[in-house]
């Protein structure tokens, strides 16, 4: 057998080249990040530019479709002078509160229902038909039913947000539970897990990416629910702002409110993504993104 310890020289060369390789990899990552941001901005600028030009030259009628500069003026005047219903931040706060409550209740309800029905075949067979019926009810009609039943306060908007969120989350949680690996469930069972422990330690983690996928889309839905609720009758909120602007043929106002809603959605989206990255850190990276 030959001596196989590498010469000290070679080890030093290797370590140096690894350091270089790693700093190169980091630089690549930074560069990519900058490119993504750049591209996003480019798209945004091109889009807004075309819109503004279109509005200026009347390809796009600003009476109907507003114009970026008009929208910006509207937002600025809301910020500085407040809206007809009071300060802008209050409108945002009211809508956000309704949305958030509706989102949390709807998501928890959807997850719970999804898990219970996903774990119990008989319940699923019996009840899923009723869930499907409920899902076919037009939300706008439900809106008036909620206003009749719950009044014009926050409750009816929250309820509308809940019904927007519930079905999406339910459908995914249900399917996520059904997709849980049967060998893994069997393993947990044999290791001594009670049905409840199986649910918490196997079913929920494996349905997690399903649930998270539905949360991404359903926060937007909760927002829509709250705004529609405010549309039907409210004292405060972004929905009322839109409705008033519509009534006054103020397209800039309508689009300005929608942009504020979009920013709200993006902020929450960012938080959900953070949460998701925390939860799924155990996940393998795709091949090729793996070695350092």
């Amino acid at each position, binding site marked *: 057998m030959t001596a196989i310890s590498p010469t000290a020289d070679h080890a030093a060369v290797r370590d140096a080249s690894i350091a270089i390789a790693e700093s190169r990899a980091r630089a690549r990552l930074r560069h990519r990040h900058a490119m993504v941001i750049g591209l996003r901005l480019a798209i945004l600028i091109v889009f807004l530019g075309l819109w503004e030009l279109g509005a200026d030259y009347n390809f796009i009628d600003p009476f109907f479709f507003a114009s970026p500069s008009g929208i910006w003026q509207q937002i600025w005047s809301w910020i500085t002078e407040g809206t007809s219903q009071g300060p802008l931040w209050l409108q945002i706060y009211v809508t956000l509160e309704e949305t958030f409550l509706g989102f949390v209740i709807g998501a928890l309800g959807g997850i719970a229902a999804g898990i219970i029905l996903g774990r119990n075949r008989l319940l699923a067979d019996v009840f899923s038909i009723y869930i499907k019926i409920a899902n076919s009810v037009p939300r706008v009609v439900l809106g008036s039913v909620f206003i009749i039943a719950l009044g014009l306060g926050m409750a009816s908007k929250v309820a509308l947000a809940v019904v927007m969120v519930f079905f999406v989350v339910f459908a995914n949680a249900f399917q996520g539970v059904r997709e849980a690996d049967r060998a*893994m469930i069997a393993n947990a069972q*044999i290791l*001594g897990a009670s049905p409840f422990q199986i649910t918490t*330690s196997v079913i929920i*983690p494996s349905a997690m990416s399903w649930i998270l996928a539905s949360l991404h889309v359903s926060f937007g839905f909760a927002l829509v629910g709250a705004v529609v609720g405010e549309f039907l009758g409210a004292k405060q909120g972004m929905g009322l702002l839109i409705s008033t602007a519509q009534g006054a043929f103020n397209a800039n106002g309508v689009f300005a409110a929608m942009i504020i809603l979009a920013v709200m959605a993006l902020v929450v989206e960012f938080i959900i993504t953070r949460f998701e990255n925390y939860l799924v850190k155990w996940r393998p990276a795709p091949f090729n993104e793996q070695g350092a």
Partner: protein
Amino acid sequence: MQLQPMAAERLSQAAPPANAAIAIDDVTLRFVTPDGHMMTAIRDFTMTVAHGEFACVVGPTGCGKSTTLNLVTGLLRPTTGAVRVMGNPVTDISRDIGFVFQADALFPWRSVIDNVAAGPLYRGTPKAEAYERARDWIGRVGLGRFEKHYPHQLSGGMRKRVALAQTFINQPKILLMDEPFSALDMQTRTAMQDELLGLWSEQKSSVVFVTHDLEEAVALADKVYVLTAGPGTVKSVYRIDLPRPRVMADIRYDPKFVEIAKVIWNDLREEVQLGQSRTLQTGH
């Protein structure tokens, strides 16, 4: 030399002794095939494992070994016949059992130590104690440096060792293992075999061990079941009366061992060839 096929055990239709740890009594199990027909996976299968007995199962691939273990755990139900564990009919998945699956069944979202500690935690062991025992077992399977790794960051053999630690830590009264060591190199395999025998003799547990390595089977077992090519049924049963404790590194050189292995090997080869010719006939 008392080496004799105990085929009588298979042929006798008398109920197995009530006090057996595992009793599979004249079981047939059929699956529905993709074209809607029924396929018999195992047929007229009878097998008894006494308390504290170590049984190995060998047979050609696809003959029904994993199916048999799944019957004992309660993951599959027999079409006809009865399966009893510790004297009780199997109705649900039993907690007395330890099962090392043939395929990977680790929890991918749990690190190695969380995977190994799962069993004790499920069974209500206090957290500190569960993790201490888990750490102990991780050391025993040689993965001390990988406690915090997730399964996808381990090699195939390492994952298998995590699965072993996960099962062993529960110190099950009944231990079922489906080709547990086939992904390990010889040296690690020997160490694991010693670990298994230690656990077994300490716990007086009953073991059913499926393997393709006949020498491994003979080295470990009290009793070796040879199955026929699928639909599987018991072809012969051999009692291995090599003295215990057995030292895995040395036993292969025992002349008695070599002789036993040869006899069973001839029996098995006959069966495997039969199975092969049968599938090849209907090859295309």
